[in-house]
């Protein structure tokens, strides 16, 4: 019974195993990146960046057709350029980075839509650019695996300075010029995760698995390491439960995974140690006592 419900879909179908593998790897890879985005108050940057990669991916498609490598490289390049330009403007002028990022991602998005429509009205390009978790082939799995490897190693290398900068953004810039470099490497990792996620899983899934577990984990624990660990766990659980939901209740797979992550977030918001129910009542009781 329990076997039938929880295990047999994956035992019976290879596409379910592949979907689970892809979504779990993405959760492990994107979760920590999402946590840092949150601590750096860039929670919406992931979403903005997800639009920014479109022209690059479209250009890759126009040049060499449906091939995963050129589209990924193109998307990565476009996302990186937008991130760099946004950062540059915020350093050279008084404009804040969120504003310049908004400006550049909109330009990039418009360019992307234009490029897509150049190919005639071949709408399927949007499908091609943004895959579905149920159709992960070997190439896509290798891509997600590669992205996860680079992302985790990269994050480990810049963990300490990134952590320090989260606590006190002025600290690093006062002791060295490493802060900028760390910031850029971090942005590159964000783009990398998004690009890998899109190709294989679709926009919603890529950004969703990045931000929702991070936001949910924050309601339970305080330290960075704990938030990262919990976010990854929550992401993995969302992937697994979402696919089960999609299998048993005929729900579209990508949204199902994200809705599970969303439910975990809402649950954490209400019942988490630092959530609505407990963080407000506790100080009150203290005051009465």
């Amino acid at each position, binding site marked *: 019974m329990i076997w039938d419900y929880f295990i047999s*879909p994956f035992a*019976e*179908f*290879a*596409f*379910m195993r*592949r*979907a689970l593998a892809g979504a779990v790897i993405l959760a492990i890879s994107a979760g920590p990146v999402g946590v840092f985005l949150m601590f750096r108050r860039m929670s919406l940057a992931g979403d903005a960046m997800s639009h920014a990669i479109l022209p690059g991916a479209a250009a890759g498609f126009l040049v060499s057709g449906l091939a995963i490598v050129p589209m990924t490289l193109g998307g990565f390049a476009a996302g990186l350029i937008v991130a760099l330009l946004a950062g540059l403007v915020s350093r050279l002028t008084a404009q804040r980075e969120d504003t310049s990022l908004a400006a550049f991602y909109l330009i990039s998005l418009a360019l992307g839509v234009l490029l897509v*429509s150049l190919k*005639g*009205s*071949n*709408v*399927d390009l*949007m*499908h*091609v650019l943004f*895959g*579905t978790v*149920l*159709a*992960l*082939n070997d190439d896509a799995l290798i891509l997600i695996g590669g992205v996860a490897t680079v992302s985790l190693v990269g994050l480990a290398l810049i963990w300490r300075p990134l952590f320090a900068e989260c606590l006190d953004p002025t600290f690093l810039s006062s002791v060295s010029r490493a802060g900028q470099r760390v910031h850029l490497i971090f942005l590159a990792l964000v783009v990398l995760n998004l690009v890998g996620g899109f190709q294989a899983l679709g926009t919603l899934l890529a950004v969703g698995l990045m931000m929702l577990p991070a936001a949910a984990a924050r309601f339970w624990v305080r330290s960075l390491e704990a938030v990262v660990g919990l976010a990854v766990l929550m992401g993995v659980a969302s992937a697994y439960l979402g*696919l089960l939901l*999609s*299998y*048993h*209740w*005929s*729900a*579209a*797979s*990508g*949204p*199902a995974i994200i809705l599970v992550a969303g439910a975990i977030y809402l649950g954490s918001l209400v019942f988490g140690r630092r959530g609505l129910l407990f963080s407000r009542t506790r100080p009150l009781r203290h005051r009465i006592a």
Partner: protein
Amino acid sequence: MKNLLASRSGQTILRRLVRPTAIGLGFALAASPALAAEVNVVASFSILGDLVQQVGGEHVAVTVIVGPNADTHVYEPKPADAVSLAGADLFVVNGLGFEGWMERLVEATGYAGQVVVVSDSIVTHAMAEEGAAHEEEGHDHGETDPHAWQDLQNGVVYVRAIAEALCSVDRGSCADFTANADAYAAKLVALDADIKARLADVPEAKRKVITTHDAFDYFGTAYGVTFLAPEGISTDAEPSASDVARLIRQIKADGVTALFVENMSDGRLVQQIGDETGVTLGGELFADALSEADGPAATYLDMFKHNADLLIPAMGGK
């Protein structure tokens, strides 16, 4: 824009602009004044464009709005389409909700000419709902399945409707239109008989095909083939895991050997299903659009032949 298109002088300017488009498509090779009497026809998508060309011959200049390999379901009209339409004598559409943008386009351009709905006199199908694969998905077409041209007998109906409409705008060439339509309809009927004869050899149980898009219901009914599609009738519905799982079980249980992708769809999902069931992909079918001129399905007749030649052997026929 609306005002400009509605004004008389605007229309003459626009007519001149339309010509180069038609030339670009390779239909009207000379827009010289000597040929000024030809009928300007705008067809909504590539298959109708071909049919109009077959019937109209040298008397028509055809402009196609949704070109080869493009998806008519979700097409967004461009200003150039409005320009073409404003200069047209005849607008040929499939109808049955296939061109969801058509009414808006006609309204926006102020096109006052005849709109020919070629599917007007065919027996329509309700949307296929029995394929368990798409019971919960919404679809774009309302209640009827618009892909009527996937039955050659309906192709004949289309051709007749086009001939009649062309006659109404160009009486002088009516004899030619009728003759062309008769000759072309004879070809369609011959191919229809040929396909039916070839399929007669395939046992009923083997006549099952998996495709990426529910566009072959008319084909299925006409020739006795069951089509199963993992995605719903609309090209942009996202499938659920249970849809895909059910389809895989069905392929294994029924021994389906015919697995196809369609020219406009993302083949990755079908590829995945093929890998999982050990069925080799049969090739690319053309459903809602023709191929480019140098492709395997540049005309309606070629498209049908191409599809039949792929489908029948995959089901074990010849």
